[in-house]
């Protein structure tokens, strides 16, 4: 391969663009990056390894535009098309010797782990503020008093356990496909989790709280539902973790394992969501508190949307996907 001096210079050809790519000229595939909206030439890379991945190209692009770190770059072949994956190899894409990629700024990004930890730590802490009847929530004569109802103490244990479990799973169990999400999500998500936690906790720990109509029977049944669903949810998280080796982003069809809780995979694509809804229904029955029921309903709605999306992508990706499975509720939804 001879080293020709091409007509194109290695600096960005758009006079207005400040991008200066410091690569010597050579006969390698060239990559030009244009803004997806304005079509402005942002960067021109003219010595790119053919087997370079999109991730590597993103790193090169960051060098000329440091404010756009790789996590906030979306590169695609078509301005309105889908984002290319980091693992995609340049050579394998349908491009000529000059690849034209379109760039979209995804906005400031924040890591999934950070978001999860923040949104789960909040409810844990906030609920306890109400449980211990910290001043300025209820009347002053109730400051730091304790409820006389057993179910209120039980509810605190269950709620706290739930969020501790979530925090631990975030740190040690989950294997995330994406590293980051848009920054504004943390505000949205925290408002949702923290807001509902405060709203529920206010009533359950209120001095005028009314215990469940059917007494201990109701509480025992609800507790059983809650515990079973928590175990189920955890089992599914572990099963999903084992599907994917550490550091990889592979996707496989999940199947039931020896653990009976995972047998729900026979009927449902996202049994983790099924069990999660079940847990909250249990908690609602236990506390007989309307805000808890509303929280369960909203959560169910959101998880159904996610489950349907996941189910659809499973169906698209795997020809041999088990036909009996529904997204979230066996046989129904």
């Amino acid at each position, binding site marked *: 391969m001879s080293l020709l001096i091409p007509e194109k210079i290695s600096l960005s050809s758009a006079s207005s663009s400040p991008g200066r790519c410091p690569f010597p000229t050579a006969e390698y595939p060239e990559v030009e990056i244009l803004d997806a909206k304005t079509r402005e030439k942002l960067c021109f890379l003219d010595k790119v390894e053919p087997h370079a991945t999109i991730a590597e190209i993103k790193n090169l692009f960051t060098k000329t535009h440091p404010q756009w770190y790789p996590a906030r770059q979306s590169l695609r072949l078509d301005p309105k098309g889908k984002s290319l994956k980091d693992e995609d190899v340049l050579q394998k894409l349908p491009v000529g010797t000059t690849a034209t990629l379109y760039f979209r700024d995804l906005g400031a990004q924040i890591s999934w782990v950070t978001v999860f930890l923040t949104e789960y730590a909040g409810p844990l802490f906030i609920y306890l503020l109400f449980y211990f009847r910290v001043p300025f929530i209820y009347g002053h004569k109730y400051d730091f008093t304790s409820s006389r109802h057993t179910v209120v103490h039980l509810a605190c244990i269950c709620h706290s356990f739930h969020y501790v479990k979530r925090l631990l799973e975030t740190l040690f169990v989950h294997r995330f496909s994406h590293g980051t999400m848009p920054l504004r999500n943390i505000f949205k998500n925290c408002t949702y989790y923290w807001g509902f936690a405060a709203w529920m906790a206010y009533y359950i720990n209120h001095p005028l*709280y009314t215990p469940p109509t059917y007494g201990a029977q109701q509480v025992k049944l609800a507790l059983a539902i809650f515990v079973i669903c928590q175990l189920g949810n955890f089992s599914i998280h572990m099963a999903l973790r084992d599907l994917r080796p550490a550091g990889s982003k592979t996707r496989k069809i999940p199947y039931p394992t020896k653990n009976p809780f995972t047998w729900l995979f026979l009927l449902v694509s996202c049994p983790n969501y099924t069990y999660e809804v079940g847990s909250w229904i249990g908690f609602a029955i236990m506390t007989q508190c309307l*805000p808890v029921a509303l929280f369960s309903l909203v959560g169910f709605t959101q998880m159904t949307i996610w489950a349907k999306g996941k189910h659809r992508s499973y169906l698209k990706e795997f020809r041999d996907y088990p036909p009996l499975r529904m997204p979230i509720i066996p046989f129904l939804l």
Partner: protein
Amino acid sequence: MAAAAAATAAAKGNGGGGGRAGAGDASGTRKKKGPGPLATAYLVIYNVVMTAGWLVIAVGLVRAYLAKGSYHSLYYSIEKPLKFFQTGALLEILHCAIGIVPSSVVLTSFQVMSRVFLIWAVTHSVKEVQSEDSVLLFVIAWTITEIIRYSFYTFSLLNHLPYLIKWARYTLFIVLYPMGVSGELLTIYAALPFVRQAGLYSISLPNKYNFSFDYYAFLILIMISYIPIFPQLYFHMIHQRRKILSHTEEHKKFE
């Protein structure tokens, strides 16, 4: 804000009766798909009926004013058609949901529900405010806005939009918005003492659902929400006005 939201949603090429608005609907790049012939026919009928309905309300107001000799307590003369046609606008949410109108379900829901809320949860529920002048203020604002909006959609669907209608929709809001918002806020404010007194729509502890709701506080929150929401909607409309009316001016130059 119900007034503001309605006109804004309308400006985004959105809202109940709008099909493809044709020339001048400057909402950037959009697929020129539009509803099918059956849906178009239905939407034309819907928008004509709504235009007629709000005209009935307008005429009703004028006749009542002439008969009474004053502008006080005119609400009673148009109460029924107002309730009927404003509530009927709930269909617009359905239109978005089934896709015959290219607007956001969320935005349309917000707009229609806020109107329906004013009509039923405030004016109808708190009888004492029905004789307030503030009610007339928002009814007039809504009536003029809706007559223009629904005729705009009718003409757009028929691909024959007179410039006057487009101008009216994107100009009169400048006065009608603040007028409507003032009427709405004053009405809610007038309702407050009666809500407090009667404990309307409120539930307090203890009760077996461990839930409480204070409608009085809720209404105050609603009033406060006007502060961030109204300016946004208003300035969006101003922005749309500049885009759409100047766009047409340029088009006319080339004709």
